[in-house]
């Protein structure tokens, strides 16, 4: 219940009448419900455009993330000795790097190679696995696969790529689904990355739009909350639809 409350409050708040004196705290029950707030959102931000950008971002970045991180995870699990320690060490080290330290150098670098400021600039992060955390996640998941399975596949003449594609990925499906879900959420809601990496508003994802809505006057908060619901809904909807298969994938060991 503690967990569910925010959603309820958010939805209720989003149908409050805007432009009335801010209630003492949040007046929970709206009377009457003001559904027009949802239409009002696009008066303030180009909602459709931003949603589209976000969708594009997710569609590109999430698969790339899953592919890059799961391949790296498999490499870690099958490497031995120094190579293995090296890969894990690099990943843990990168996990420790503060995001704030990277914003400025990153944008300087990406501009230098001409990759800044596109709707997909943020998706580049997927090449680095989005976060090394996902790589470690895969490494752990794959370390549970009996070694003899991977060995058998190799003996059957499967290339490293085929071992990954045909054996490791399906066997590590829980991890893949988890990483896909987590990275979807990440790309759907990240706003610091696009804020620093993408200068043209036309290329912004919706989270950044929502971020600017969040700075509206208190009196307009219902509209912000409506925006928040619009932005949260796809994530939740995807979760609700996928939840069964998601958890069943997670469950199957």
């Amino acid at each position, binding site marked *: 219940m503690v967990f569910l409350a925010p959603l309820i409050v958010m939805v209720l708040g989003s149908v409050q009448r805007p432009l009335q004196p801010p209630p003492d705290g949040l007046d929970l029950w709206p009377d009457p419900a003001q559904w027009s707030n949802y239409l009002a959102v696009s008066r303030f931000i180009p909602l459709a455009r931003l949603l589209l950008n976000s969708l594009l971002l997710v569609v590109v970045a999430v698969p790339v993330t899953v592919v*890059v991180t799961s391949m790296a995870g498999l*490499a870690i699990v*099958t490497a031995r000795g120094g190579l293995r320690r090296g890969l894990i060490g690099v990943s*843990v080290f990168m996990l420790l790097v503060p995001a*704030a330290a*990277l914003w400025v150098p990153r944008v300087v670098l990406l501009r230098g190679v001409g990759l800044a400021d596109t709707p997909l600039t943020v998706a580049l992060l997927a090449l680095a696995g989005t976060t090394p955390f996902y790589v470690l996640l895969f490494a752990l998941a794959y370390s549970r696969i009996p070694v003899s399975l991977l060995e058998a596949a190799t003996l059957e003449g499967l290339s*490293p790529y085929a071992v990954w594609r045909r054996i490791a990925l399906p066997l590590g499906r829980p991890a893949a689904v988890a990483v896909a879900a987590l990275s979807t959420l990440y790309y759907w809601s990240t706003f610091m990355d696009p804020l620093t990496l993408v200068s043209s508003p036309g290329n912004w994802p919706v989270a950044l739009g929502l971020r600017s809505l969040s700075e509206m006057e208190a009196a307009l908060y219902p509209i*912000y909350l409506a925006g928040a619901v619009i932005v949260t809904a796809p994530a939740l909807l995807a979760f*609700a639809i996928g*939840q069964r298969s998601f958890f069943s994938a997670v469950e199957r060991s």
Partner: protein
Amino acid sequence: MGAAIRRWPLAVPYLLGSLLLVIVPLALAAALAFTDYFGFRPPEFTGADNLVRLAGDRAFWDAVGVSAVIAVIVVPLRLFLAVGAALLLARPRGARTAVGRAAAYLPSAIPDAAWALLWLWILNPLYGPLPAVLGALGVADPGFLTTPWGARAGLVLVMALQVGEAFIVALAARAAIPNRLYEAIELEGGSAWFAMTRVTLPLMAPIVLVLAVRDIVVVVQNAFVPAMLVTDGGPANATLTAPLLIYRRAFEYGELGYASTLSVTLLVLTGVAAALPLWLAARLAARQRTRA
């Protein structure tokens, strides 16, 4: 001599991506740490000046202290909640599990700003339900937004419940434990508690460890959004965490060079902090191995 199986080429995309997006930028940041840099002109090399300044930068060390205090409380709490929820909801038991799982995951799906807004209301000293409930229970109101420790407690709550990620990861880890092992314990007449402490938790330990390291990093370095939106560092800098301070230093005061110095320092400090659970886990695992 021999031929191990070669699958390291699979790591190449990841390593290249990391090189471009993390390692090289980090190297740049490390270089900037020894400069005066404001972003408008090329950086000026200043040698060890920034380090000297760092040594005497009380505000920064205070902020590191605040971050440490919060991390010490939040990280175990988050792990406890995430792993606890994962264990409780590991076995499908109909609709309640589904609802429970969705609920555990939800807060992480809600935009930060909305989440912060909600907590501003929940913690509100006058209208908030939490102080009211505490009052009704006869517990003294800690002053969630008004006193230093109250604000820290509030921040802890805000961060503690957003554990959807860790929850899912823990759930996946729990699911990966072969059922056969539980059958064996069951046959031996081991209690559920025994199975959890001797089988589940030790087998989940590596993942919990990674979660712990990551949580430390998240709380100590990246989670300035709650601090910024809920308490804005106040009251009297009681919740001015290291990342928030660095953020201000870099972007409000425009000192990108010195902010780099602070970031790199923080990186080193978190490295040390993260080494702690790693060390602890190694010790524990060694004990576990032989004892059962």
